[in-house]
């Protein structure tokens, strides 16, 4: 996705995109899978962020580098320490979600949801429909929830020093993960399998050993049998 398009999408979330461009973007969204995926991520990030901030600091504006901006702002938030519901109520609904509730963006979002489903309808296979339904529900749900559910959870704190290097689960490592998952606690097991499924090719890296530490990098099928 080019930067301009990404920027437009962010602007749409910020209610800073003119309505005519909103309409154009909504139409494009109906046929652009990458853009749809990006929108879905925005919706999810928004769902996690909209719980609001308790410190009353200025709100975040979503721009091109959405994730890092969100991370940077959220990383200043206090960790959860049993925030009472009443307290979270006060801060629920960040400013940048307010435009989603009313104003021009609402029309844009509504149009987009319709177009989105319409555009995908011919594809129509089960998970894709579920996917679209989930995404469109999430989009429309955001508006409803900001108004109705003001007792949202605390926000997600993205650590600044998380090790970003990940490895592609090779055949061998994937086997190990699957075998190991049988013995993890159920909740953590879901995370484990999710990580396996969500791992991105092309982000391979070894954490703290030399670059040629490829003990888990070799596909098992290339291994010679023991003689």
């Amino acid at each position, binding site marked *: 996705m080019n930067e301009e398009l990404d920027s437009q999408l962010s602007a749409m979330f910020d209610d800073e995109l003119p309505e005519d461009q909103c309409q154009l973007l909504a139409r494009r969204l109906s046929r652009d899978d990458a853009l749809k995926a990006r929108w879905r991520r925005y919706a999810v990030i928004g769902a996690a962020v909209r719980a609001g901030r308790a410190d009353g600091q200025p709100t975040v504006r979503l721009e091109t580098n959405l994730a890092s901006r969100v991370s940077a702002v959220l990383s200043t938030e206090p960790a959860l320490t049993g925030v009472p519901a009443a307290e979270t109520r006060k801060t629920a609904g960040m400013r940048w979600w307010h435009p989603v509730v009313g104003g021009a963006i609402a029309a844009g979002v509504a149009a987009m949801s319709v177009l989105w489903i319409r555009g995908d309808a011919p594809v129509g296979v089960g998970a894709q429909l579920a996917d679209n339904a989930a995404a469109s529900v999430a989009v429309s749900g955001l508006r409803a929830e900001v108004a109705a559910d003001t007792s949202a*959870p605390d926000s997600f704190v993205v650590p600044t020093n998380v090790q970003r290097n990940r490895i592609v689960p090779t055949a061998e490592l994937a086997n190990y993960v699957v075998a190991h998952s049988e013995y993890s606690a159920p909740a953590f097991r879901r995370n484990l399998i999710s990580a396996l499924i969500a791992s991105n090719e092309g982000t391979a890296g070894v954490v703290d050993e030399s670059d040629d530490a490829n003990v888990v990098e070799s596909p098992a099928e290339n291994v010679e049998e023991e003689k």
Partner: protein
Amino acid sequence: MLKKRNSSALAWGFVALMMSAVAAAADDPREWLERMNNALTTRNYDGTFAYWQGDKVEMLRIIHRVKNGQVSERLVSLDGSGREFIRTGDELACYFPDQRTVRIEKRPANSPLLGNFPRFDQASTAFYDIKQVGRVKLYRRDTRVISVTPKDSFRYGYKLWIDEGTGMPLRTQLCDARGRPIEQLVVAEDRVLRINADIPDSAFLPEVSTEGFRVLRPDTGAGAMVADARSWDRWDAAQLPPGFRITLRAFQTMPGASGPVRHIVTSDGVASVSVFIEVQQMARGSGAAGSPEGASGSTTAQNSPAPAGQEGVTQFGSTSAFSTVVEGRKVTALGEVPPETVRAIANAFRSLGQQQPAPTAGPRTAPPSGLSLQSQPRR
């Protein structure tokens, strides 16, 4: 009359005691964790979840069903890769459309799927501080927020938002020792989470067409040959990180592996680390590698120096893995713990020498007596 009054008082006292015990149990964070485990393993559910790791978000659909005692589950990526993980009964299938590969594993019928999960028992409290830290609403549902905070850096912590009504975790956060989230899995929208739903068999069919995919299954033929050729040696851990102990020993057959892989599970009661020991496949020509005698015949408990490039830590998500070579065997420790923990655990294992004659059948048959799926008594 006095006797009757005393009995009545005693009865009321007993009721009050029971009620306070019940109330205490309801507020016991470990009780909530057990309820959550129970819900996750016994309930039917179908929902869309967001998996976060760093600045990455991936939407997943997770379906779980227990029908006639058989567990079926499916995790499918709704973004990008289209990867899927499907379990139906004793078969696990991982679909990697991006690699045009399907990996299929068979689990034994008596797989301890529902019986060997870590339990949040009293021993866990020696290494974790388990607390209820709040009651908040998540998607308009009342949830208990339970934190599991490690007392040292050998393990990660967790925060769980557990739905009071169903016991389902609506949000699971894995945190580092300082309480900073590393990854989380959160219900994307409650309206697309169906709990106790009637889920049809068709929900467990892969979305992707596997035409032209490479299908990898455990190679029983190769495994049988290796099993015939070598002795079964015993392995044990010299010194595990505090709190970790061996909870299970088993053998695994794995697609692409040249023989059955020894699988030892260690746990501190919350986190689990698996140790896989197999014939070293990478270091051909490095002495004992690949040699049954060289690999298992030694009774000395010394670590062979790992050849260059044969040792290392890798990570994805919260999972760390560390591989090394010990006496000609590749030893890999993997689990949802910090890298230093898998390193310490892998390096703790040593061969104790031969135990029994080699089995004459392939890996699909029962492993040597006394080594297969043995649960260790809990301390």
